């Protein structure tokens, strides 16, 4: 029955990428609330413009809309992008992710959560253009070409930003361990 779903509707083409849209919005924006605003606005734009979408890469198309919306929102609220999302307490969903999963003993789970939050802070501290490139590559697993399309940058710029992002991240990790 499921294969009788129309394959070219917004529901079938775009909605499966809602998690990706949120992931990018959350990494670009300072807190969960502004990420939600960006996600809402971007999804409404996507719905409006979907009839003109003729490409083969709906995820890249949606991520481009999310990125445009996020940047427009940040230029509207100047300075927002300068504040990294360092504080885990601004995330209402964090309490849930702190719950131990069933296959870990509480201690292991706590260590895992701490480690994740530590890396999260290091990524959040990266300049936004490096952060978005890193997130699109490592978490969304986009190719260089796809990242270039989403960010409207030449592939060479994508490669050098990715390299700078990774080097800063590795340096931050070494500093963190030394401290």
């Amino acid at each position: 029955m499921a294969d009788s779903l129309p394959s070219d509707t917004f529901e079938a083409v775009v909605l499966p990428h809602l998690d990706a849209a949120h992931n990018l919005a959350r990494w670009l924006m300072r807190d969960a609330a502004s990420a939600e605003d960006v996600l809402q606005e971007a999804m409404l734009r996507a719905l409006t413009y979907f009839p003109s979408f003729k490409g083969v890469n709906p995820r890249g198309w949606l991520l481009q809309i999310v990125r445009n919306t996020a940047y427009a929102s940040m230029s509207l609220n100047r300075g927002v992008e300068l504040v990294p999302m360092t504080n885990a307490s601004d995330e209402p969903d964090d309490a849930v992710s702190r719950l131990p999963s069933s296959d870990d003993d509480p201690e292991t789970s706590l260590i895992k959560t701490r480690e994740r939050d530590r890396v999260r802070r290091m990524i959040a501290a990266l300049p936004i253009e490096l952060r978005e490139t890193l997130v699109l590559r490592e978490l969304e697993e986009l190719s260089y070409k796809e990242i270039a399309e989403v960010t409207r940058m030449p592939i060479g710029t994508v490669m050098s930003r990715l390299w700078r992002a990774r080097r800063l991240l590795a340096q931050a990790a070494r500093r963190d361990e030394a401290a």
Partner: protein
Amino acid sequence: MPDCDKVLLVQAELDGELGAAEAAALAAHRAQCPICEAAAAELAQARALMRDDLYQPVPEDMRRRVLTALAAAQPPRPGLSIATSDSFGRWRGWWSNGASFGFGAACAAALAFLLLVPAMPPGLTEQIVAGHVRALQPGHLQDVASEDRHTVKPWFDGRLDFAPPVKDLAAAHFPLTGGRLDYLNGRPVAALVYQRDKHVIDLFVWPAAGDTPPQTAERQGYNIVHWSQGGMNFWAVSDLEVAQLEEFVADWRNAP
């Protein structure tokens, strides 16, 4: 660390972006290049930090709110009262499913989707009106507010891959009030905001070849005028009377 111009290739290999021949050539270079070896170690260190649990999927309650907003944004369609009477329900499958999208839900969703496919996909004119209406919501009209075209025009620098022409029509009683980025026809576009009395005029601009004279249309009570000149596409939309909107377009086209 001194640099080697091959480090980006080392990274490209890590990312699976190199072909076999390039990878072989790089391996030969790496064997003799300590810089590239160090870069590879650093990249591996950074890669090891990027674990799956850093991914931030949409929380369930937020997914529900987004889907509700999307359902509300779907314009009611005449003749589809059965489907539109439960605009909430047709999205239900999307947030209640998770991994357990049941057979019944799938059938219901399929039926709802079939009913809701628009008979005629809205074209660019509808997008223009939708963009205008969306911008009229509080706080959405302009990203840069200024009556000075020397403020509005540079604001677009670096935000678009083209420089939209911005004209001052205050003398013609169509003062500029600002601009914003919008997204139309699958690309970012400039939206210039003008005013006549209490009426807002959106002028959408993006690059296009050709020269076409103004054409007028009407949708949902809004008047729309479209033309192309000087390598740009223009769409003016407003609730102004059509004669006044055409006056705006004529003034725009004649202004220096």
